[in-house]
């Protein structure tokens, strides 16, 4: 068996750290804690954690600055903790290299899921060319998507969008991120195009497009493809 993955928690709230420690250790992770941005930077450098959970609201430093400093040399996933109503901060953090986010208060199950997705993406190495989500499969090599073994008629843009989201399944992608990847830099800001394609894609891949289960909206931030 492998050594347990180490996780560094940078948060000034003792209670949150305590809760995270209990939850995560009982799920087989090894935990390091830091109460300030400064301690967090030192711990990140000395402990080589497999993943960092970073609270954006730190007492001694701007969480965003801490994120940028860590990101200068740290390659592994960083998960942002934030309060609600700060979509702008979350988007900035994601653009600055954070892998995913969670808003306080969060549910433990969701936290664990995000951690797993992030770790898998980081360690998974090459992704197989066929992705399967229940009765839905995507053949990346042949540009084919199947639902209940029926081939879906997708335009090439639709397929690119679907492939991008599916390859990053479980992880949030910001609107701008997606626009940049699929349509290129010139389309950054044209969220309406993205919404049109998301709506069309949903009609084709979801059982009930009004209640999507695969292509999930993250309010004000972007989309996430369900694992």
């Amino acid at each position: 068996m492998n050594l347990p993955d180490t996780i560094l928690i940078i948060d000034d709230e003792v209670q949150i750290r305590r809760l995270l420690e209990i939850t995560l250790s009982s799920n087989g992770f090894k935990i390091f804690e830091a109460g300030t941005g400064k301690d967090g930077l030192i711990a990140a450098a000395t402990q080589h954690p497999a993943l960092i959970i970073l609270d954006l609201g730190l007492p001694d430093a701007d969480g965003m600055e801490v994120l940028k400093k860590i990101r200068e040399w740290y390659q592994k996933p960083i998960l942002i903790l934030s309060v609600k109503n700060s979509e702008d901060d979350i988007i900035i953090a994601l653009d600055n290299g954070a892998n995913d986010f969670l808003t306080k208060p969060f549910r433990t199950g969701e936290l664990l899921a995000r951690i797993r997705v992030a770790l898998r993406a980081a360690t998974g190495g090459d992704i197989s060319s066929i992705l399967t989500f229940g009765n839905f499969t995507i053949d990346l090599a042949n540009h084919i998507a199947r639902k209940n073994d029926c081939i879906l008629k997708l335009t090439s843009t639709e397929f690119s969008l679907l492939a991008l989201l599916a390859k990053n399944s479980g992880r949030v992608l910001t609107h701008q991120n997606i626009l940049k990847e699929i349509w290129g830099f010139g389309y950054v800001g044209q969220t309406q195009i993205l919404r049109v394609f998301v709506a069309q894609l949903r009609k084709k891949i979801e059982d009930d497009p009004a209640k999507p289960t695969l292509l999930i909206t993250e309010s004000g931030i972007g989309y996430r493809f369900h694992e």
Partner: protein
Amino acid sequence: MDNDDNRPDPDELLASLKLEEEKSKRGKLKIFFGMCAGVGKTYTMLQTAQAEKSKGCDIVIGYVETHNRKETADLVNGFEVIPRKVYQYKTTSVTEMDLDAIIARKPLLVLVDELAHTNAPGSRHAKRYQDVLEILDNGINVYTTVNVQHLESRSDTVAQITGIIVRETLPDEIFENADEIEVIDLTPDELLQRLAEGKVYAPERSKEAVGSFFRKGNITALREMALRIVADRVDKQLHEYMQRKRIKGPWKSGLHLLVAVSHTQQSAKLLRWAKNLSYTMGADLQAVYVETSYKPDVKESEQLNKNIALSRQLGIKFRFITNNDMVKAIVDFAQKENITHIIIGKPRVRNLLTLLRLGNFVNRLIRYSGNIDVYILGSDIQSKDRYKEKVSLPSFTSNIRQYLVAALTVILTTLICLLLKRFIGYQVVSYVLLFVVSALAFFIGTGPILMAATMSALIWDFFFIPPPYTLHVDKPEDMLMLIMFFIIALLSGVLTSRIRRQEKKIRVREERTNALYQLTRELSTATGIEEVITIAKNDIKKYFNLESRILLKSDSNELEYTSKKNGNFTISKNDMSVASWTFQHSTKAGKHTDTLPSSNYTFYPLKGNQMNLGVIAIQQEIVFTQGEEQFWETFISQISGKFEREYLRNMAKQAFLLNESDKLYKTLFNSISHELRIPVATIMGASDSLIITEHPQEIRKELTNEIFNASKRLNRLIENLLNMSRLESGRISPRLDWCDIHDLINKVIESLQDELKPFKLQIVIPENMPFVKIDFGLMEQVLYNLIYNATQYASTSTNLRVKAFYDNGFLIIQVMDRGPGFPPKEISLIFNKFYRVEGSKAGGTGLGLSIAKGFVEAHKGTITVENRQNGGAKFTIKTPTEIPEVAIKS
């Protein structure tokens, strides 16, 4: 039974109490009073002060003149002396008492010599007694010295006795209101001896002085005057004492004097005389000026202003009455004011007309005054000189053009009449000329009319009355006609121009009334201090042709600069200190006043009913006449009133806001503490139970569920509070972005899936629903609150409907339930903060709907609610939105 006559008049008692009260806060004034220089006033003052000082009093010398007298100088040495202030006046420098230094030093007692002294130009006050009044106002006691010849009311008599005109005079009021007066008396012989010994002046000056002023006769007369004044005062004090202590006895006379004043120099004498009389009679005194259609010329107006100033100095109340009938005006006023004695000066004989009227005036006054006594004071010597000057004055004030017009008109008429003479006869010509003269009177002044009348009489005589071309008149009836012609022409001319003068006066008054009306009207619609300032300044410019600047007080009750846009009207630091003085003392100051006249502007206080609001500065070249000044004061009192109302309104508003926020705070506290406590109690109870008791698996699960639900409730509350505070702080600015309405509704329903389980949910969105541009997060919260609300009140398994559609520029979302709906009375209140419908179920803060409203309004949208026909409520959100111009093809 009480004898009414012996009871003190309550008004008088009140007045004496008020005087007493005012006096106690002020410093006490003691005057060392003497008949003339050299009796030892300063010496006695210093001695008295020395005695006080040895008792430990804090005494300083503000200003003492030793006149190089050794004994006096020796006495001065024992005191702290406040250094004098040096004023540079042209080439010489003058030292004056340093008023501010004295006030800053704040001793118990200050010694100030020569109360009647006139200050050097550039000082704050024109007169030293004004300085002393300010010192007294600051609660500092003052010892001072005065000679009898300086008393305003005695200056005439002194001039008569000694032949020296006294320029430095002191208002009687100051003297009368002094707390203590000590008379320094010497016999004339003793004084003369002191003079001879060189104790008063240096020997060479002494001789000169003895020759001119210090003659035994003079000294005796002055001494008598000084002693009588003090005796009168003692008498009056006794009266006052008896009144205060309610001692029965000879009460104050109950006499009320009225002196009728005109615009002549004689009236000044009349005022002084009346003052003396009232003093000895123990009567009160008012002065009255009757404004008639007669227009005083410049000199007379000046004299009138002087008379008014004098009466103010003498402490006489001055009243203006406008009435063409002087007698009626005086008598009416006297009756209204319960006057017992009317004092008039003997009217001067100005011309034929006044000679005729003179007897009439006096007779009528005596006839109408009934039981009021009338005193008539003799005329003055000077009137003869003024007589000559007078006669010509009113006639030739009209301008040359009017004379020319009059002459030309008469000549033209004559020419026409000469042509028609043969047909109409010479007698008719007189009527034509008479008509022309009368008609002219409507357009031109008295002088030209007199000329036209004379001219036409002569012309008629010369050209028309037979024999023609001579001034000779044959027939006696023609002579009679000529005389009558002349008199009629004269009378109609004079009367008409008098009517015109009266009309002009009325017009001026009308203009003023109209100006005031306009001002009041404009002010009544003005809101906010700035607007009032603008209106005030514009109207002052319009009606007075004056530039003005308004300085208002700050909240800390100090004067501050306001209204920056003032063009070239710059107020210097010096001017600002004048303004502050005006504000603090609520008395006008600056240019053309007695206080700080060296300033560039005249400052008037803006006095409200309850407070001083500030100061108005005007740049005035010509002094206001009495009438103008009154009008001006009425004018600015309107402005002050408005400022006061504005100020009070602001205060009330602030108080209201404070009160509101206090109320809000309380409601918040009540509501929140309850809402917080319930879930916290649940969490604590359940977790505590989990810690101390070993529960079976399902109970444990139930308890943890409770904890989870309670936390969710707490979270919702916090979410609402945060949103509320975002709304309150006004920091909400929607981040509009394209949004798929399906996505939005779905998101809300997902997060409310537990709450929505017991309901039949229907979502209605048309097939061709376009994307809309809204703030996803905010609108999500709005829908969340509305749908959550519905789940809390509607009974289970009823229908819950969410409908969204686009209508002509608007996104419309409706949330409909089959709950109880809202009581019609309260339906308009449900969006109010913390408002909860009466009898609604426990839980909830009354925030959800007001947040929804706030967020929708941040989108510039509206949210409405109505009760549905078959029960339940229907919320409708309507917000303007863009939609994509063209559909994007994939």
